[in-house]
């Protein structure tokens, strides 16, 4: 079965510009997660979707970050405007079980550099 797909793999932008990342989860997986992984740190959950509804976005900086999951399949994460501290790898993961008991399958990530 195909894994979690993410694009682009790399992105370099200047501060105050906007950027969007795309994620296609494993077919049939109802739960989708976006994580931010800053260099030298573990991944931090930004937002969790169950189908097309938001379950947890408590750590999403809503003044500049937004995410959607139309039709409960693909998802996009947007940053507008970007700041230097947004430089990180953005990981998408999906699971076929709600909650943390189910295994999360991770995509390869998008490495964002903000200059």
């Amino acid at each position, binding site marked *: 079965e195909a894994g979690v797909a993410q694009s682009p793999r790399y992105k370099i932008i200047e501060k105050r510009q906007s950027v969007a990342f795309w994620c296609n989860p494993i077919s049939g997986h109802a739960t989708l997660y976006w994580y931010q992984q800053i260099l030298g740190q*573990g991944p931090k959950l930004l937002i969790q979707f169950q189908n097309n509804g938001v379950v947890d976005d408590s750590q999403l900086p809503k003044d500049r970050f937004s995410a959607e999951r139309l039709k409960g399949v693909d998802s996009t994460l947007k940053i507008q405007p970007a700041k230097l501290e947004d430089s990180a790898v953005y990981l998408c993961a999906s699971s076929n079980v709600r*909650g943390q*008991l189910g295994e999360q399958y991770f995509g*390869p990530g998008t490495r964002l550099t903000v200059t």
Partner: protein
Amino acid sequence: AQSVTQLDSQVPVFEEAPVELRCNYSSSVSVYLFWYVQYPNQGLQLLLKYLSGSTLVKGINGFEAEFNKSQTSFHLRKPSVHISDTAEYFCAVSAPASKLTFGTGTRLQVTL
């Protein structure tokens, strides 16, 4: 809230030697514990998880971990490492209805 501490940022080891990667957690409720591996330029892959039951958990690639509630630890072990085990290893914790919280990772460097 839960937290995870991985004290060792890097662990160098020779091939075929045993290795232990340490993980300690903090939580006021019962927890679920996980180890993930991240190879260069790849996403995370689940190595093993402890949900309940036997405290010794066996995972993929010959890794195992032991849940120690009294010491709040979940150390990862492998009796004999291979060059291909070189990667970043993340310990993570969650509780019922809460999100997954990751540690800062341990870089395992296996050399000949």
